[in-house]
């Protein structure tokens, strides 16, 4: 018995870090890599990349829509805090209409779906429609959809470095519609938006990290 206890202790002390590393490798990396859910995402990504690279390799110029569309599938990441639950969500958004007051007067200020980043961050008013999937810690998930009216005010370098985002959104979730005030910033060439959304009764906060690619 005494010998067994010593050897158990020795193996625990000597193997703490490598054991944890092997455990991490086995559980987190291998298990996730071999799961169909992960592979499905990976294969989808590879399919998009191969479409683009194949088009280039064959010297066939892809259309604007063919290039633009896959990037619209990249979800925004949202965190929400409310009573009785809080959680995490994905959001996909589209722009049915945008009016740019910051773009030069020789081009149309109206845009629909494909929006040149400059037109948005140089100063614009945008109507967006979005769909969300929210999940709670308990594993329940909810569909939601929303509409937003946002204004983008350029702050630094015509908004390419920093834009102020202000607006309002109406969310429909769990058979209920709620109005949210929205404020935030856009940065990194208009690709990345941080927005905070607030609605009272019950107080709900939504923080979102949004990726806007055209």
């Amino acid at each position: 018995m005494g010998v067994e206890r010593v050897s158990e202790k020795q193996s625990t002390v000597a193997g703490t870090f490598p054991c944890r590393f092997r455990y991490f490798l086995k559980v987190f990396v291998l298990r996730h890599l071999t799961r169909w859910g992960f592979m499905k995402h990976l294969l989808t990504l590879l399919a998009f990349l191969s479409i683009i690279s194949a088009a280039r390799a064959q010297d066939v110029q892809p259309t604007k829509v063919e290039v633009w569309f896959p990037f619209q599938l990249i979800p925004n990441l949202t965190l929400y805090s409310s009573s009785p639950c809080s959680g995490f969500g994905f959001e996909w958004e589209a722009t049915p209409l945008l009016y740019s007051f910051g773009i030069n007067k020789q081009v149309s200020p109206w845009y629909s779906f494909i929006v040149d980043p400059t037109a948005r961050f140089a100063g614009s008013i945008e109507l967006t429609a979005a769909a969300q999937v929210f999940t709670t810690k308990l594993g329940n998930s909810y569909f939601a959809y929303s509409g937003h009216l946002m204004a983008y005010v350029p702050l630094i370098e015509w908004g390419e470095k920093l834009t102020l985002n202000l607006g309002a959104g109406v969310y429909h979730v769990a058979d209920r519609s709620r109005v949210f005030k929205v404020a935030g910033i856009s940065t990194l060439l208009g690709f990345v938006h941080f927005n905070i959304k607030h609605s009272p009764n019950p107080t709900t906060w939504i923080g979102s990290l949004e990726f806007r690619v055209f």
Partner: protein
Amino acid sequence: MDRFTGISGLLTRKRQLPVFALLIPVLFMLTGCSSYVQRIVTRSLSRIGDPIDPAPRMITTPILPNTDLAVSWVGHATVLIQIQDKIFITDPFFTGSIGMVVKRYIQPGLDPSLLTRVDFTLISHIHFDHFSYGSIEMLPKNGTLVIPLGALRYTPNFGFKAIRELKAWEVIEEDGVRITAVPVQHFSGRYGLDNAWMTDFGYTGYVIEYRGYAVFFAGDTGYHSELFKEIGRRFEIDLAIVPIAPGSSSGLGSRVHTSPLGALAVFKDVGATYMLPMHYRTMAYGSDSNLAEPIERLREVAADEGMLDSIVDLEIGEQRVLY
């Protein structure tokens, strides 16, 4: 209820990890990160907090009296050209970084507030180091902004007197100045995705003609013998402003960038009297090990060919009266 149970648990915490892992390559893809761009970004990020060196010289009198043709190198592709009473500036770049991540090494050699007027601001293409919104904002807007085909959709309402978008060989004439957009060999797009659909437009060179003087600004280009010989056939050029970096200093350069030897070939093809090398030293591209290497190499090859006297070898912030 909008709650769904068929795939309930799809986004439970356990399965969020691989989704986040998936987002990392997507973010790289978003920024159009080739390994080349990644090297540039990595090198720039390592310099965050480092001071930017002052320019070796500063232009104190940007507009000179009684001058037929004067040229000043502000840094990178920014060149101030004076032909008699007309002032031109090419690809203005005065900000501390391009695209928020690539930091400049040396301050511009001109304080843009010293410019009381610019008759023509020429933009060769819409890459961040050539079409810098923050830099254009610093310039006086009492002139005309000249941009290549496709750039209008990327042009904020800066407030210039006029904006002219030119396709290859298109000409504008204003107040005796004739500017021709001439074809060069580069690539376009600004935000990564857009170079997929802007494959054969959105970049240009220019020939400026005024009162018997002609200046060729190549913008950013690789070497293409036929294009440059055609430019040489059509114009009698006094000064060719040609990029000599980035990339390898041997050979003629890459498809989209001329090396010093390639720049010299451009200079010979267009048949200019003088050549001003530019597009080097201001920033480190991923493959540049020594910022002075391109100009040193140019001096070597120009000396070998007996053309050293034709090279207008300027420091950043240096001004030269040619005529």
